[in-house]
C-alpha cells in the first residue's frame, strides 16, 4: 500500500497525541488530584471529568482544523506529496538556495539569456546575409558603372578621333 500522505500522517500523529494525552489524564489521576471533590460528590466528579475530556478533545480538534484552514495545509500537504513522489528516484541531495541571491538568480536568468543570444545570433546572421547581398549588389553596381564609364570613354574617344580627322580635313580645304 502506498505510503500514507502527509495529511493523513499529520492527522494520525495529532490523534495519537490527543489519545495519549487523554490516556495520561485518566479518571484515576483526576480523582487522585480532586480527592476532596470526589469524596463529596463522586457522580459529579465523574461527569465533570467526562465533560473535561470531551471538551479538551473538541478544543484540540477544532484548533487543528483551524490551523489546517489557516495554513491551507491540506492542499500544501498533497502538493508536497506529489513533489516528493516525483523525486523518489533521485538519491543525491537536491539543490538548495546558496544564500547568495545574485548567484541563485543567475540560473533563473540563464535560459532567457541563452534564448536572447540565440535570437541575436539569428538576427545577426540574417543581417549578415542581407549585407552581403547588398555588398554584392554594390560591387555589381560598381562594375556596371565602370563598364558604363569605359563605354562612354570609348565613345568619347571615337568622337574625339573623328572630330580630329574632321579638323584635319577642314584644314586641307583651307587656303594654304
Amino acid at each position, binding site marked *: 500500500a502506498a505510503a500514507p500522505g502527509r495529511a493523513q*500522517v499529520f492527522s494520525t500523529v495529532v490523534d495519537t497525541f490527543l489519545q495519549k494525552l487523554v490516556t495520561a489524564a485518566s479518571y484515576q489521576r483526576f480523582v487522585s488530584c480532586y480527592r476532596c471533590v470526589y469524596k463529596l460528590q463522586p457522580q459529579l466528579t465523574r461527569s465533570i471529568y467526562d*465533560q473535561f475530556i470531551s471538551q479538551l478533545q473538541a478544543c484540540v480538534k477544532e484548533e487543528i482544523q483551524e490551523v489546517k484552514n489557516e*495554513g491551507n495545509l491540506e492542499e500544501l500537504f498533497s502538493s508536497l506529496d506529489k513533489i516528493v513522489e516525483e523525486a523518489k528516484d533521485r538519491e543525491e541531495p537536491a539543490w538548495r538556495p546558496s544564500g547568495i541571491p545574485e548567484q541563485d538568480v543567475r540560473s533563473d536568468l540563464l*535560459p532567457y539569456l541563452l534564448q536572447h543570444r540565440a535570437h541575436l545570433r539569428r538576427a545577426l546572421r540574417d543581417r549578415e546575409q542581407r549585407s552581403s547581398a547588398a555588398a554584392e549588389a554594390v560591387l555589381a553596381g560598381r562594375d556596371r558603372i565602370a563598364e558604363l564609364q569605359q563605354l562612354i570613354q570609348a565613345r568619347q574617344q571615337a568622337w574625339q578621333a573623328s572630330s580630329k580627322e574632321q579638323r584635319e580635313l577642314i584644314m586641307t580645304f583651307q587656303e594654304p
Partner: protein
Amino acid sequence: MSVDPMAYEAQFFGFTPQTCMLRIYIAFQDYLFEVLQVVEGVMLKKLDGKINPSQIRKCTEKFLLFMKEHFDKLFTKMEEMLLQLVLNIPKNVLLPEDRVQEQYRCSEEEFRALQEEVRQLQEQYRAEVATEQALLAELEEQKIVKAELEKTLQCFDELENICRQHGIGNFKESLALLTQSSKKLQEVLKDVEEKSKKMK
C-alpha cells in the same frame, strides 16, 4: 546546537514549521488552562460553599502540573514526528520553482562570458546594420550615377542615330570615306591645276 531555520520548508509552506508547531502548542496549552478553569468553576458552583475555593485551586494546580508534564512530553514527541515526516522537505527534493537551478547551472565566469557574448553580438549587429545602411545608401547613389551615365550613352546613340538618318551609316566609316574622297578630290584638283598650268 545550530538551529535549522528550515528556510526551504518556509519557502514552500509560507511559514516556518517551528512556528506552526509553536502555534499549535500555545493553542493546546491555552485550551488546557481554559478547560481546567471551567472544571474549577463548575466544581465551585456545584459544591456551593461545601468546599474552600483555595482547596479546589490546589487540586487544580496539582492536576495541571501532572497534565502539563505529560502534555509537554507528548507534544515534544509529536513535534519531532511532524517536523520529520510532514512539515519537512526531504533532502533529495527540489521545489518546482527551483527546477531551473538544476537545469541551468553555471559559474559566475560562464555567466559573465555569456553576458559578454551577448554584448558583442549586439555590437556586431549594430555594426552590421550600419554596414547595410551604408551599402544601401551607395546603391541609391549608384542608381543615380548609372542613370546619368546611361543618359550620356544615350546621347551618343542619338547622335549616331541622327547621322544615320542623314545617310551617314556608320559615322566613323563615313567620315573616313568622306576624308578619303575629299583627299581624292584634292588630288584630282591638284592634277587639274597642274594640267591647266601646262596648257598656258
